[in-house]
């Protein structure tokens, strides 16, 4: 009986570890997407404004 409990504990731990790994991957993917979005916005702004980026009173 003890063996069974140990086995189920091991399975549960493995499942939890796998779930945590998947969640980490999702978090990294979301973070990368947000960074890409910010870079995209920055690049679009620079390209759309062109030389006017520097044309402002200091």
């Amino acid at each position, binding site marked *: 009986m003890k063996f069974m409990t140990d086995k189920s504990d091991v399975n549960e731990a493995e499942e939890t570890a796998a779930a945590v790994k998947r969640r980490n991957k999702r978090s990294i993917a979301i973070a990368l997407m947000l960074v890409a979005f910010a870079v995209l916005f920055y690049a*679009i702004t620079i390209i759309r404004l062109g030389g006017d980026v520097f044309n402002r009173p200091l």
Partner: protein
Amino acid sequence: MSDVSLNYGQDAGHASHVTGAITGPIRGTQPECDIHDGDVGDYIQLLKPRVMSLVVFTSFVGLMAAPGSIHPFLGFVAVLAIAVGAGASGALNMWYDADIDGQMQRTAARPIPRGRVSPQEALALGAVLSAFSILVLGLATNWLAGGLLALTIGFYLFVYTMWLKRRTPQNIVIGGAAGSFPPMIGWAAVTGTVSLESVMLFGLIFLWTPPHFWALSLYRCRDYERVGVPMLPVVAGPDSTRTHILIYSLILVTFSVLPAFIGLGGVGYLAASVAAGAYFLKLAVDVYRHRVGNDADKRAKSLFLYSIFYLFFLFLVLLVEAMIPGAFVATGLELKV
């Protein structure tokens, strides 16, 4: 044509019968999915990558064929935004159709029926990506393009998925408009207008959609029947569907040569559209004539697969003529519009 009209009359009656019990998603039948345990790949699957690839290609052709120029990076962003917008509408479609997807062989392996992603997550992903893609496209190019993308997503979700799909066998005829917008959006991203040429590109995909999907539904008929989606073979029968495929193929092939008469396509496009169209018609006639057993399924499958190549090929020729200097040779048949 009277044959078609008669069938449509029958369709309407059958459709109301078939869909009588299905007026929206059966939320109770969806898998309970409290465990949000999907991998990144599952979320990518929600975006229907294969559909996205066709959207990327056709929008790119629209962008390149349009007169005028666009900064290469903004052109890249435009295609990216259109693709993400299409992916977002795919996620929204999977959210709404989760109840029937699980019962169809073709869609049973999608992330929601498999319990990898919850419907709420699909809805959130679709909504967020829709908003982002429209915003990015509008800011990077112009708001006509952004508006057309919003219209595409809205049309696919509200008109096709929610309204037409479970109610009428005309679902993919009218709903096909959603898949036809990408080249028009690409064109609008460069020119800021909707012109006859971009309407022509729209029309090409719009007329291509019915024979393409009806060929698929001929050999996937049982799937649709099981879940009560009134595809044409389910409500009007396979024979009527074959007649429809033939008629729509004739209209498509005739329409497909028109770009050569308004200066959108050159001699190369004219030759390609005539040759590829002739083979399309040959396969449609095969589907019409072979109606029994495995042979019938095989002919329908051949037409379905060829139709993908056909659309890709016509757009490829337009792209080559637009991109490679000297590839475009005017037909001399251009009509004054």
